């Protein structure tokens, strides 16, 4: 199982976080679990690199952090997408798809 895990290409962590948050506000732990779940454990995300990414995104104003009570009544910091974040997500998503399509075409024809 460990062999199948891939390192995340540069810069896509941000995109994935934004996409994850598009479904609703979550705290860091939940984001990490969800990303692992959805990628069916293929992507190896260092838990430690998640938080710097979150803070960076918060600084750039694409997500907003809010302290609130978690499901087991503990204090946790929930992040949610801002409007600018939504726009950024769209832009990055389309850029990613274009890139993936182009690379795919290249691989097929060559």
């Amino acid at each position, binding site marked *: 199982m460990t062999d199948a895990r891939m390192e995340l290409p540069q810069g896509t962590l941000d995109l994935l976080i934004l996409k994850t948050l598009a479904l609703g506000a979550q*705290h*860091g*732990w939940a984001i*990490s679990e969800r990303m692992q779940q959805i990628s069916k454990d293929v992507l190896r995300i*260092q*838990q*430690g*690199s998640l*938080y*710097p*990414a979150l*803070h*960076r995104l*918060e*600084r*750039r*104003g694409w997500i*907003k952090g809010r*302290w609130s009570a*978690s499901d087991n009544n*503990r*204090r*946790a*910091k929930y992040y949610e997408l801002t409007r600018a974040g939504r726009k950024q997500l769209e832009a990055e998503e389309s850029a990613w798809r274009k890139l993936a399509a182009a690379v795919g075409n290249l691989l097929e024809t060559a």
Partner: protein
Amino acid sequence: MLSDLWIRMRALLRRKSVESELAEELQFHVEEQARKYEALGFTREEAWRRARLKFGAAESVKEECREARGVFFLETLWQDIRFGARMLRKSPGFTAVAVLTLALGIGANTAIFTVMNGLMFRTLPVRDPGRLVEILHHYPDDPEPGFNGFSWDAYRRLRDGNHVFSDLFIGSTMNFAPVRADKLQPQTLFVGAVGGRFFQELGVRPAAGRLIGPEDVHLGYHAPVAVVSWSFWKTRFNLDPEIIGKKIVVGDDPPLTIVGVAQRGFYGLSYEARQDVWWPTTLGPSAGWGLPLFARLKPEISVEQARTEIAVLSPSVVDAPDAGPFVHKMKLRIELAGNGVTTPLTQMLSTPLKVLMAMVSLLLLLACANLAGLLLARGASRQHEMGVRACLGAARARLLRQTLTESLLLSLAGCAVGMFLAYFAVHALIRVFASGRLMLGAPVHFEALTSPDIHVLVFTGAIALFTGLLCGAVPALRASHIAPAAALQPGSRIGETLRQRLFGKGLVASQVAISLVLMSSAGLFVGYLLHLRNFNLGFQRNNLLLVTLDFAHSGYDEAQSSRLSQELLMRLDAIPGVSSATFSDMSPMEGPGASSFASAADHPEKQIPVSMNYIAPAYFATFGTPFLAGRDFSARDQAGSPVAIINQAAARGCFGTENPIGKHITLSHITLTKGERTYEVVGVVGNAKYNDLQQAAPPTVYANLPQQSSVHSQLAIRTRIDPDSVANAVRQTEAAVLKSVPIVRIMTMNEQIDSSIVPQRLIAMFSAGFGALGALLAAIGLYGLLAHTVARRTHELGVRIALGASSHSVMRIVLRDALLLLGAGVAVGIPLALWGKSIAASLIQDLPSGSIVPVVWGILGMIAVAIAAVYVPARRAVKVDPMVALRWE
């Protein structure tokens, strides 16, 4: 964008809570992960261990989060400042010397600049000051700016004949007089007569009532109204709204009715000669030549164009028939007036201030070199620390910034102390100004020179910043270019390359050079002052007491005044310690007096300008001027025909080589009596300086005071003992005989001379101070370098001593270094000092700049500095204990 800023601000200001939030967030994650593991069946400890492992090192995650958040520049700056301050506190000796050095350099500059700013750079609070000019008469070769006074005709001619002024208007005269208002004590204030459009042109608005306008100014008379300044209204009337309509009396003129108060902050066209009362001028021939003219340049006209035009218009004014004979020799010129009109104070001080400014700039350079040397030496001893920091990951830029912050902190501290010192220096300067003879009795507003001004603060801040960056640059660059491996080696000595050492030596040599220049300049100016205080004036300057009396309101008629004056002279003669006493119209250094044109009666074509003085008998005996021929005035002359005594220059000018005794001399255009007067010459005396110490004694004609029954307000007393000890007796005697004649002033002749040479005293005093400071700084710099060298070479010296070197040869090593530096500094300094001398000679007239004594004085000073600096290091070198030195690795 905004969120970015907000987050950074929060990170800066509420650091604790931000940090604890971060810790809590990460902790939450680990807890959740541990819970998950627990749910999977692990024990509590195992779950936690795995959770933490999975998460990674918490501290580095935190660090990355902090970095991701972005650190505010201010935060690291604050860190640098705190660290720098702690470092400086740890070495109090170094910090004290560095701050003091900077304080001296910065403070001296601030002091001089404050005065220059107050006197020359501040714009007046009037409309469009940049285009305001005044029109002056002046002698073409005279450095004095001239006087601003025109006749009614001249005004009209200029007004109608020019194309460069958008307005030509009559400004305000400037004199001071006692002002009486409301039963309060009279106060001497600056006052002036103004033209009808004065306030309007300058854009001044009334704070109360109305201002003087064209309706108050007429041909031949003026409305008896007055406008006062806001501060007059406040201090004398307490802002009483009833001030309009009150009466005010200026000098001996008829009372004026106050019609308004000028806007707050307006005091006429000079800061130091603040005016408090204005009244309307009188137009027409009766104004004489007393109308001051100001103008505003048209927007498209440059100052040069205006100057050309005025030169063209000049003859129409100066050659007019109603102009006095002196005026024909003058030309008209324009001076920018936006920064205040030229007053005696500005005239007196502009050159000295420029000279002093040059000197303090040199002093600042010296202080910078000194500080740079100190910082370099300090940096060399902190290499180990810098190496450790570089190893721990400090970026080069960060090291650079940290070292620069330290030197900026030093310069900030030096700036603060310097401003404190400058305060005292400025007041010392003002005390010297205030003793000037043109200031005596005038209510000059010296606070104008010292009031805080934004320009001064900006200037001081700028030079503090500049010195901090300049001095800190090289040490900072060195610190940031540390090779950590080399620096961290145990026992690594204070490694310096040859180039670095040469740089340090170069700094000290340059300090010696600058100090030499300062000291030789000081020698030049002090020597000049001593010369002025001691050379032959044509009369004896010591033991002479001068008393100024005010007969104006005495109520005595001529006969009474004359009789009482005679009695006073007799009583004064009787005072023990007095050898003689006399009266005169003017005393020698009081200022310019009456002047006229004289010619021998039988050669009326050969006219020469002469100065005139009215004297009583015994004048020359009292002043110590020798008689060359003839006799003194006596009591018998009073009833006879007019007699005069002339000096040698006048005799030669009018009579050539003939003996003038018994011949007659004619004076024309006498200012005190109209028309011509002929006198019989009864005596010839030696030339004596008059009004100006440096100009040659003018041809002088002395008329008989009692005979001419003229004003006689100067009393001169020659004493056998110290004049000040006789002053009290003189006061009492005078009060007893002339009961209603107050004494305006008592001073010794030496004091009067001093009051006429304020610029020279100023430069001498302060250049001596700066020279001494410069020498001190150079000594400190030299000492520092030599001590550092000895410390660096302790090991080597220990070896030498162990091998049997005598103490002489060890001392020679240290002395050789010192001599080399001294020699280099002197070699560079001498040409600079000579160059400086020639510049000073071009700025200051009559400066005796021929001799090289000042330069020699400077060299001697530097030798003394070197001896003082070398003493301790040399002794230390000799006392090196070989055992200790060899062990110290």
